[in-house]
């Protein structure tokens, strides 16, 4: 049961061959069996999940018209507020906090009849690329338990790759969905900025944060994308347009005549040869499927990482000011003699982990008078140049492609106290956050050196999310017929 796709599970539940309660119970059993080794969840809500499942079964029995994912279980990133489960963002400053309201994404999961199994581990406040910055636990990559599952949405990617859930939510600020998807051999999509609601998503960098889906195949990702995306008047940066036809695109993978641009800047030094080998083979595959492949130069992309590590921390330093020990969350040192300001500083020092502190300080620096023009101002100009590179590229090609990450999953601990090395994991994913366009990662094979998954990134213009799914589906179909089964079936059994 747990090895079935979300679309299959939804159909089996709809036809009455099984029930949501049975499917949910099977996944809760799987969680019980493997969670001790994977550590993907911060909170498993077994009882609540079974209640939700029973409710979906009852609604169906009463003849209610339900969507294609009704009754299917899902793992939910701990960055979305949930009024019936804790929301911690993997931070001590929010330990035990149960929000008084649901995020829009949470509400829409519930409305679609998805059963929330629990909340997944992440880098604290979504800052990181390995999930090692969680204040609670280290999550393992199901392909090799000594390696990282990517981040920041590493609990979600690990849960899906370990068959603990067929679907998961994530958020992508600089690659936090695509990079974990790539290194765990699953599909992860960053929708167009504003295409999915940020209401109730605990903010990291508001101009970049984008909720998106994880799944083990392209169609499931599209079904989930459709279920929680779309205009939300409660998010002032929400795009008031119809959700692009992502499900139809995922069903008709076809690249014949499509113009595909290979980003020239994303290769060479720092790229693992096994990653480049699989990427180059996929380029040939696309050509054999009828795509017209050309090389495209996007020179500003080489400055994207530097620009991102000024813009994202700047926004974070402002957003995280809300954790002031007054209205919710941790309070430390309130002994009746200390001032509010002293309590605030003690609480924030005790409640935030090292990466969060580094970024708050870095952002405060970049926004300081005297440095603003040289750092934040320049970073914003680079952002303009990146957007222009995309615009110029999309006059020549329909999609751009690159490896999703420069390397496969690295060992736990390897980059934990070396921020700059960690930041390099997001080298190829950051430009799409800066420009706000759509981008997906789909598995394209295993690297020769370590037999670990490699991801192909497909980038499309803003609001052309369906194009990502169309190309990803074509690649998935062709590769699975070559491999004779999905990539994930090659992972060692847990």
């Amino acid at each position, binding site marked *: 049961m747990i090895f079935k796709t979300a679309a299959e599970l939804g159909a089996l539940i709809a036809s009455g061959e099984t029930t949501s309660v049975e499917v949910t119970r099977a996944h809760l059993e799987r969680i019980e069996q493997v969670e001790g080794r994977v550590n993907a969840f911060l909170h498993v809500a077994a009882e609540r999940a079974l209640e939700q499942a029973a409710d979906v079964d009852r609604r169906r029995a009463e003849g209610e018209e339900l969507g294609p994912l009704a009754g299917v279980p899902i793992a939910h990133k701990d960055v979305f507020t949930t009024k019936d489960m804790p929301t911690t963002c993997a931070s001590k400053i929010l330990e035990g906090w149960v929000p008084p309201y649901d995020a829009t994404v949470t509400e829409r999961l519930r409305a679609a009849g998805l059963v929330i199994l629990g909340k997944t581990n992440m880098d604290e406040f979504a800052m990181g690329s390995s999930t090692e910055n969680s204040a609670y636990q280290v999550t393992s990559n199901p392909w090799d338990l000594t390696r990282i599952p990517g981040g920041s949405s590493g609990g979600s990617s690990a849960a899906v790759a370990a068959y603990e859930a067929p679907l998961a939510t994530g958020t992508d600020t600089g690659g936090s969905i695509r990079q974990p998807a790539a290194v765990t051999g699953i599909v992860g999509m960053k929708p167009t900025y504003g295409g999915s609601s940020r209401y109730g998503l605990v903010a990291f960098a508001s101009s970049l944060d984008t909720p998106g889906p994880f799944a083990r195949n392209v169609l499931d990702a599209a079904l989930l994308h459709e279920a929680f995306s779309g205009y939300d008047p409660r998010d002032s940066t929400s795009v008031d347009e119809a959700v692009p036809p992502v499900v139809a695109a995922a069903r008709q993978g076809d690249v014949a005549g499509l113009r595909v641009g290979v980003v020239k800047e994303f290769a060479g030094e720092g790229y693992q040869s096994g990653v480049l080998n699989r990427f180059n083979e996929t380029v040939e595959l696309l050509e054999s499927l009828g795509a017209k492949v050309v090389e495209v130069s996007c020179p500003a992309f080489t400055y994207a990482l530097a620009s991102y590590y000024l813009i994202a921390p700047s926004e974070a330093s402002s957003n995280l000011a809300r954790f002031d020990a007054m209205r919710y969350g941790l309070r430390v040192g309130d002994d009746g003699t200390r001032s509010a300001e002293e309590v605030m500083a003690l609480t924030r*020092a005790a409640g935030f982990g090292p990466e969060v502190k580094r970024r708050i300080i*870095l952002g405060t620096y970049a926004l300081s008078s005297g440095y603003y023009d*040289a750092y934040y101002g320049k970073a914003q100009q680079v952002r303009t140049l990146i957007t222009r590179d995309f615009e110029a590229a999309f006059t020549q090609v329909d999609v751009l492609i690159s490896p999703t990450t420069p390397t496969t999953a690295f060992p736990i601990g390897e980059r934990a106290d070396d921020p700059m090395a960690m930041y390099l994991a997001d080298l190829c994913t950051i430009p799409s956050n800066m420009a706000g366009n759509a981008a997906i990662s789909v598995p394209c094979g295993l690297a020769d050196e370590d037999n670990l998954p490699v991801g192909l990134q497909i980038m499309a213009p803003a609001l052309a999310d369906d194009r990502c799914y169309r190309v990803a589906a074509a690649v998935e179909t062709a590769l699975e017929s070559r491999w004779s089964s999905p990539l994930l079936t090659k992972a060692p059994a847990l």
Partner: protein
Amino acid sequence: MSITRDEVAHLARLSRLALGDEELDHFAVQLDAIVSAVARVQEVAAEDIPPTTHALPLVNVFRADEVRPSLGTAEALSGAPAAEDERFRVPRILEED
């Protein structure tokens, strides 16, 4: 050196982070490396390039000024570290005379 330990200590105070000496020592070295790396953005000649603050060409978004249901007092206070008389109780915010 692009950023000094003293600067990091000053920034930590501005950010309301009561950091210890060891933490400051550690962060000062790491932040110096990070600031040196991100300073690359200054290589881009950019006199005439407008800054981008946001991916979307949004100006202002308005909504109708309607009365809608909101959180009740009990819900709003449900996560408070301390509450009293249906209010958030906070440490003193004014100096004593």
